Each structure stands twice: as C-alpha cells, then as structure tokens.
C-alpha cells in the first residue's frame, strides 16, 4: 500500500550551537524520510540520535538557534500541500568547508515569524504531537478537559463550548480514562503518568489531525502501563487508521505498531524500510547497527542463540565531532578489510538495496 507520501523529509539539517565549545551540535544532519498515508512510521535509535529533534523540526518548534538550517519537508494532506520549510533559504546563509557546514548566518526572528505564518494552519490541525514526560507537558493551570476542549474548538467544526465538551468526554472515554466526567475537571497534578499520557493523546487526536507524531509515548512509564499505552495506540490505529510517526528507542513497541521503520544514528537515517524486513531477526541484509540494536533486545531467541545479551560496544556518537567516514565506523563490528578504507574516509549515502528498503552502509554496494 504505497500512495503519495503525506510527509516527505529531504536532507533536513537541524543544528544547535555550543557557545562554550564554539561548535555546532549537529543533532539532525541530513535526514530524509517518508511517511505514506495511513501507515505508521517507527523511528528508532539510541537517545541523542536526533529522533525527537527531527519531530520538533517538522512542527517548527525548535526555538534555540540556529535550529533548522536546510532541507525540505513536503507535507501533502487532502487539505494542504506545502513545504513546511518554504523559503528557508531566504533566512539562512551557509558556508561549508569540505562538505561540512562551518558557518551559519540566520535571521532567527524573521524565520520564527515565517514559521508561525506557515505552521498556523498546520500545527494541531494537520499535525498533532504528543511529547515525552506527559506530566510536565500538560498545562498544570488548566483542567485536562479544558485542554482537550480547546483543541477541539480550535481545529474542528465544533465551536460551541458544550458540544466540544461532550466531544472531549468521548475522547477521554476513547483513550480509556475511567469515569471521564470526573476526570474532566482534574488538573494534571492529580493524574498518574499513564493517565497524563492518555490525556495528551486525547488532546492530540481530538483535533482530528492527518498526522500524529508520538514522541516516546511510553518512556518514563512503568512496564505494565507501557504495554497498556501500546495497546491503546494499537487500538486507536485500527479504529482511526491515522497516519502516525512513532518515535521510540524501544524496538518492541516499534515492531508492534509500525509498517515501516527508520533507524537513526548520529543525526542521520541508517536504514529505512518496511518493518517486516528490518525488524525480523531472521532477515539477512541489514545495517550492522540495526542488527546490533536487535541483538541487544532482551528476547528469548537472542538468549538461546548467544547465551548472553551483546551490547553495542563504544559510546553513542557525539554529534559535535562528526567523523568524515561512516558515523558508525568506530563501533562497527562487520567492517571487512575490503571496505575499511571507504568506511574510514567517506560517508556512504542512503541507497536502495531493494524495493522500499534503503541502507547507509558500504557493505551492500561497492
């Protein structure tokens, strides 16, 4: 089922700047992704691999400079078709050396204004987002119910308070919050973490967006709640068939929910393709990083085969010093003498190795 992608990210770069080191933190460094209508894209990767930043960049929520500096984010819903980063070039000047961005001049204020203008029709209405640590992400000064109602009145046809409230109640009910009428007037501090997550999902979905970005929906919740939340997501997915970008470092969740998967590392996508290919342990051709990742999941199979849980050696790549070659080179355990040179010198690009399956590794092309 491949239709025109609802979201098409091309070569997105979102940098931050460390004043103390006088260096760029290349959190997102050339990410390209696609999300097809109706499908769920799982974005997986260790923390610091730039998953969340990518998500925030999509919604234009990066407020510290320089922020987004290049790329395209094509958005195609039934209502809106536009590049969410339109005329970014007018605001940013880049100076590169050896393919590395060394200097950024950006009219931050102007760009912010521009973003507000571009996103005004998009945020909430088209793309909704849920964040990690839900407790602090809900406004502590207004009741949960009100926050849902607000979303409804902002983005749906229902402008009348009462209707909206009714609708909000149904949403509370849908996200499995028991006795919605009571909870409606509760303030976030009164709710448990799980509850808050559900509430936030309700807030996000209430505005009936065409794309939902769920950023680490389960982190910070204890195991039982986690699975419950995942169940909820699965159920909602089947009910609403809403397009979702699911961000998590937890492969098990990704594998349960998503059709296609993007594996991110050090600010780029290493592997992108259908979930069934990438995440099934048996499948052969895949990026060393992915396999390492899979190997490190506590699953019965792994234990049986190896008798221990292999961890990925080395540290997570620090995005200040991006090596010239493959970003994973220093930690890669499948480098062959044949390609070692390339791996060290030159960064591979994301190539199609078969229909809908792209990998960024020298192993698969020469």
């Amino acid at each position, binding site marked *: 089922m491949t239709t025109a992608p609802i979201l098409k990210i091309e070569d997105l770069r979102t940098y931050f700047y460390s004043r103390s080191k006088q260096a760029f933190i290349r959190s997102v460094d050339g990410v390209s992704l696609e999300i097809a209508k109706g499908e769920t894209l799982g974005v997986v990767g260790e923390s610091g691999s730039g998953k969340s930043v990518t998500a925030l960049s999509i919604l234009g929520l990066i407020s510290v400079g320089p922020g987004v500096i290049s790329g395209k984010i094509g958005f195609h819903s039934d209502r809106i078709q536009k590049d969410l980063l339109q005329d970014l070039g007018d605001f940013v000047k880049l100076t590169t050396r050896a393919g590395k961005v060394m200097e950024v001049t950006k009219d931050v204020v102007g760009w912010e204004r521009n973003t507000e203008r571009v996103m005004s029709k998009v945020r909430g209405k088209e793309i*909704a987002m849920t964040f990690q640590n839900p407790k602090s992400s809900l406004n502590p*000064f207004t009741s949960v119910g009100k926050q849902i109602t*607000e979303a409804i009145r902002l983005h749906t046809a229902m402008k009348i308070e009462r209707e909206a409230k009714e609708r909000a109640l149904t949403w509370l009910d849908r996200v499995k919050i028991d006795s919605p009428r009571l909870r409606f007037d509760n303030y976030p501090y009164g709710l448990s973490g799980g509850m808050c997550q559900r509430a936030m999902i309700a807030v996000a979905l209430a505005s009936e967006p065409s794309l939902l970005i769920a950023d680490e929906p389960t982190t910070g919740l204890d195991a039982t709640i986690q699975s419950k939340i995942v169940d909820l997501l699965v159920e909602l997915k089947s009910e609403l068939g809403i397009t979702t970008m699911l961000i998590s470092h937890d492969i098990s969740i990704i594998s349960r929910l998503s059709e296609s998967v993007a594996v991110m590392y050090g600010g780029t996508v290493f592997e992108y393709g259908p979930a069934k290919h990438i995440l099934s342990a048996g499948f052969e051709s895949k990026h060393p990083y992915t396999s390492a990742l899979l190997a490190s999941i506590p699953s019965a199979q792994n234990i049986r085969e190896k008798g221990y849980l292999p961890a990925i050696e080395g540290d997570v790549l620090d995005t200040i010093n991006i090596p010239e070659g493959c970003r994973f080179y220093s930690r890669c355990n499948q480098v062959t003498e044949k390609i070692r040179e390339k791996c060290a010198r030159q960064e591979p690009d994301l190539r199609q190795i078969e229909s809908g399956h792209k990998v960024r590794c020298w192993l698969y092309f020469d």
Partner: protein
Amino acid sequence: MKFSAIRPIALVLSRELVITVLLLLGVSFVVFIILFASPGDPFSVLLEGQLSTAEAKAGLRDAMGVPRSWYVQYLAWLAGMLSGNFGTSIRMGLPVLPEVLRVGFSTLILTIGSLIITLLIAVPIALYSALRGTNKISWPLTMSSYVISALPVFWLGYIVIYFFTHKLGLFPIAFGFSSAGQKYRWLYQLLPIFVLGVGNGTISEVIRYLRQEMGRVMAEDYIRTARAKGASVWKHAFKEGLLIPVTEIIASKIPFILGGAVIVEQVFNWPGMGRMAWQAAQDRDYPVIMGIAILAAFFVRMGSLFQRVVYVALNPRASKE
C-alpha cells in the same frame, strides 16, 4: 467558579487572616517596645513652652490616665484597640482611628496609584525583552527605566515641580490633594502618584523579576505543547508567566512604596500617613504611631493576602500543599 475552587480559597483566606491578626499583634508590640526605649515622651511635647519638670510630667500622666509601667500601658492600649478604640492623639487630642483612616485612605490612593504606574511601565518592557531578548528597542527602554528608578525620589519630585512651575507655569502642582478648586486638579493629584510610581526604586527589580519569570515559563514543556497544538502561547503562559509574578510583586513592594510615600507626601504636600507618622515619631505620640503602624501593616498583609488568594485560585496544586 466551581465549589472545588472556592473551598481552598476559603481555607487560605481564613488561615491568612489568623496570621494577619498575629502579625498585627507582633507589629504593635515591637513598635511599642521601640517607642518605650526611645528618650523623651509625648508629655514633654505638651509641656513645651513651660518648665516641664519631672513632677509636671508625672502629674500629666495621671491627669491623662496613662499608666506608669510600660506593660500596663501596652495592655491598656491593646484592650482599647480590641474594643475598637485606638485612643486619642496626645498632641492633637483627636481620636486616632478616624484620623489614621483618613490619612490612610489618601496614602492608599497614592500607593496603589504608583503601583499601577510602576507596573504599567515595567510589565510591557519586561514582557517584550522576555520574548525578544535584548534588542535595539528593549535595551533603551530597560536602561531608561533603570535610570529613573535610580534617582532620589524627592529630587525627582523637585525636578517635576520645577518643570511644571517654571517651565509650564502650571501651579500648584505641589499640592496633591489640597489643590481644591484648582484647574488641572487631577493633574496635581496625578503627579505625586507618577513620581512615586517612577521613583520608588523598584521598577528595575520588577522588570528583572518579570523578565526572568516569563522567560522561565516560556521554556516550560506545556508551552511547547500549546504551540504544537496551535493554541495561543499567551493564553497558556499568562497565568504562570504574568499573573502570578505580578501579584507577587504587588504584595512584596507595598512596604517599599509605603516608605517612599513618606517622602513624596512631604514634597507634594499630600495629606497622608507618611507625614503623620513622621510628625508622630518626633512627638512620641504613641497612640498615633501605633495606629499608623497597625494600619500600614494591615495594608501590607492585605497585599500578601491578595497574592495568596490569586495564587491559590490560579494554581490548584497550591491548595493541596
């Protein structure tokens, strides 16, 4: 407002009121101790212009039914006050309560007025520089507000008066209230308020505080959520970023501004508490001083009460704490 919201407020109210009473007791006691420790007494003021021998004073005490030992005196005063009788001014012979209330009222106008001025100046600057950071608009504004709030208030008053008399030929601006029937009366009354509002030396602090709070709130997660769902950031930041800090400022600055009022009332001939306190402190006119101290403390407490109530009303968590 829902009952659930009213109950905590009621609780806070009652609690604060109890505290207020205790504090007023404390204030009166401290003031009394200081007064008692100070040399001279009201009677020597009455006896000015005659040989005020110790006997004469003692005679006076008895004549005026003032107990000799200080604690009896205090208790007597306390009892009187609790029965709503603040005694009579030793110098003026007038009953204290109406007098103090009268001046208290005019001082209250001055205080509240100047608070409003202060906020009118500080809030926009603070918000602007909180959102836009230091730039070519916010910087000069901030600087200039710092500058005026660093001027000695009475000198500022003199400047204003000089300007309005010698330059604009508008007089008597120096009369605050007692400009009865004058043209521009409202102006004469506005000026002291303005001068105090600008010159009470708190603007810079207010700006700094508001800016920090707003900045902090703007970085909160829930504001990001608000932006993500396309709601107005203002609407969400308003309560924690503006309302609460402002009320805190109002509460905490009242003592300062009451202090500044002492000066401004002298310069602008404003018939207020400050002047009376100043006079009474020199006359050792203890019923008056006590009355004023109590009233002033009461104002301060009302300020913080207001702040508490607003805080609780806005922040459901507070009532649980």
